[in-house]
């Protein structure tokens, strides 16, 4: 397996008036499962396709195991890829689809047969080997596409939104299967998705992309708990983090943030990074908002805030409340162990030690 390095890689399409990928520098360690996540048009698929050699790099270099592969043909990079639409060859049966890459490389028949059967057994698709792609379900097609990718034992696996055409149940199942497969093969894998749930559950490390640049790179937990900027903060997490325009104020010895007419005293460490009078953005995740009379022990909570529940969405275990407090709209995610309905008046508190503060540019301050 292999270490992949992007060195100041730039991509600008001939028809574009700006760079789709801007000076990307990134190292993916040997055996790592890295997930590129971001909204449509952020450049994640472009990065994958540059690594695959399917599109040219405008500037910069890409290395695999120290070898510059920037200008190599896709077939010479020793990479395999699973496509969003599976890209199975319709005229070939499952066996021949899986064996295709080995045949193209002139592998001996016996070796091809052994490897195809091994990969098929691993993915549980042996009974499908004689079938044509049009006879397969979405999940089966995806397994065959994965089979075609693993049978060559390449240095790097690429996954381009491979689960986006599957239904929710199949997606969850395939997600777990791909993760298990990765642990077993210990392969370097780069996975592109716009689904943060996939990113959070599968990644060793994830890269949140925004507008062609890395918004943040880190473990799923790091990105979730300490987002570097407001984009990452709102992109990762469902429901998204609540953001409020705020101003730093000093009341006596304590510093805090004033949101509307409501002052939030901040923990000491956060407060000392603020400059009185300056504008900030205060962020709090919906699950860090509690009913004032049900605050878990040990939580450093704010003063109660009276609000009205405009909408209560039951999610089974949780209920998402769309609240409004004097024009301040936010969402709270609470455990579904109390009766609450639209139109109710409730008091909530914010868990201050779980709060986030961003400066005017949206960069994390505390």
């Amino acid at each position, binding site marked *: 397996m292999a270490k992949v390095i992007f060195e100041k890689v730039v991509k600008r399409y001939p028809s574009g008036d700006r760079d789709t990928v801007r000076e990307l520098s990134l190292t993916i360690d040997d055996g790592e499962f890295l997930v590129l996540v971001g909204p449509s048009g952020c450049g994640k698929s472009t990065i994958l396709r540059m690594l*695959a*050699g*399917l599109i040219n790099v405008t500037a910069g270099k890409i290395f695999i195991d120290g070898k510059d592969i920037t200008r190599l*043909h*896709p*077939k010479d990079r020793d*990479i*395999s*890829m699973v*496509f*969003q*639409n599976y*890209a*199975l*060859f*319709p*005229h070939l049966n499952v066996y021949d689809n899986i064996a*295709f*890459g080995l045949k*193209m*490389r002139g592998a001996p028949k016996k070796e091809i047969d052994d490897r195809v059967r091994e990969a098929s057994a691993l993915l549980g698709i042996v009974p499908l080997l004689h079938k044509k792609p049009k006879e397969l379900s979405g999940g089966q097609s995806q397994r065959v596409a994965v089979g*075609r990718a693993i049978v*060559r034992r390449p240095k790097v696996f690429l996954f381009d939104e491979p689960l986006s055409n599957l239904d929710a149940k199949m997606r969850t199942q395939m997600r777990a299967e791909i993760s298990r497969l990765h642990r077993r093969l210990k392969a370097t894998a780069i996975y592109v998705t716009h689904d943060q749930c996939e990113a959070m559950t599968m990644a060793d490390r994830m890269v949140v992309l925004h507008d062609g640049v890395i918004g943040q790179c880190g473990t799923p937990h790091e990105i979730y708990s300490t987002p570097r900027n407001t984009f990452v903060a709102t992109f990762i997490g469902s429901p998204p983090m609540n953001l409020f325009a705020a101003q730093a104020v000093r009341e006596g010895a304590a510093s805090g943030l004033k949101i509307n007419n409501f002052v939030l005293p901040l923990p000491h460490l956060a407060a000392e990074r603020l400059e009185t009078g300056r504008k900030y953005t205060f962020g709090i995740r919906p699950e860090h908002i509690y009913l004032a009379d049900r605050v878990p022990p040990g939580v450093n909570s704010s003063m109660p805030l009276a609000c009205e529940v405009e909408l209560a969405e039951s999610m089974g275990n949780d209920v998402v409340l769309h609240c409004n407090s004097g024009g301040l709209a936010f969402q709270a995610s609470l455990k579904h162990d109390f009766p609450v309905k639209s139109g109710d008046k409730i008091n909530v508190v914010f868990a201050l030690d779980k709060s986030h503060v961003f400066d005017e540019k949206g960069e994390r301050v505390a």
Partner: protein
Amino acid sequence: MKKLALYLILICAAVSFIYPFLWMAFISLKSVGDAGARGLLSSFFTLQNYKAVFMEIPIGRALLNSAIVALSTTASVIFFSSLVGYALAKLRFSGRETVFMIVLLTMMIPGQLTLIPLYTLIVRLGWIDSYPALVAPWMISAMGILIFRQTFISIPDDLIEAARMEGCGELRILTSIFWPLSKPAMVTVGIITFMNSWNEVLWPMMVVRRQEMMTMPQMITTFSVGGQSGGELGVEMAASMLLIIPILAAYAFFQKYFIDGIASTGIKG
């Protein structure tokens, strides 16, 4: 009632198309004395006319020449037209649309207009009375390029990318992925090209003078018009029947693909 009327119209149309063929077939099987009679049927059918054709002209050699020329032209048109069609459908290069427009433009130029320059070229190359003279000018066709381009455009790019990742170069992608997925288009181009090449009279007349290099239609035209047939209708029809049998056989064999190809590419013959 409406259906009945429709069927009657269709039957009339079918008969008007089929009758000349039937007439030709029956005349070719009638005896010399019977050939002038108006009706299709006769009390006595014979293969005498066919025997006469084989006796009087080297029809076997002409058949072989026609087969060599038509098959080489067809294979070449399928290969080169699909090559260009693939490039115009799937490869990105500057001037791609202009090239396609030029290809379309060549379809508007009447074939007769290019005969003299082509003939001059063939003479200068010293190819008169040779297979290259009969094949080379028709090795690629704008119609073929158009059909392949239209067919290839509908094949998803993902398949090309998957094939590239799996180790294919462009030629391999064409032959291993695009050809098998474009059988109806290949058969359509193949039959149209084969038919055109097989039936061609004018061009062989210009570049072939030696009898042993003549193709079937050229030989039969020379035979019928040139007086070798002795003005016998039955013998002339027998020679013409020999000419159309391979075309009918090819069509019957590939009929399913041919109809698919015409339907999917929207090209009418």
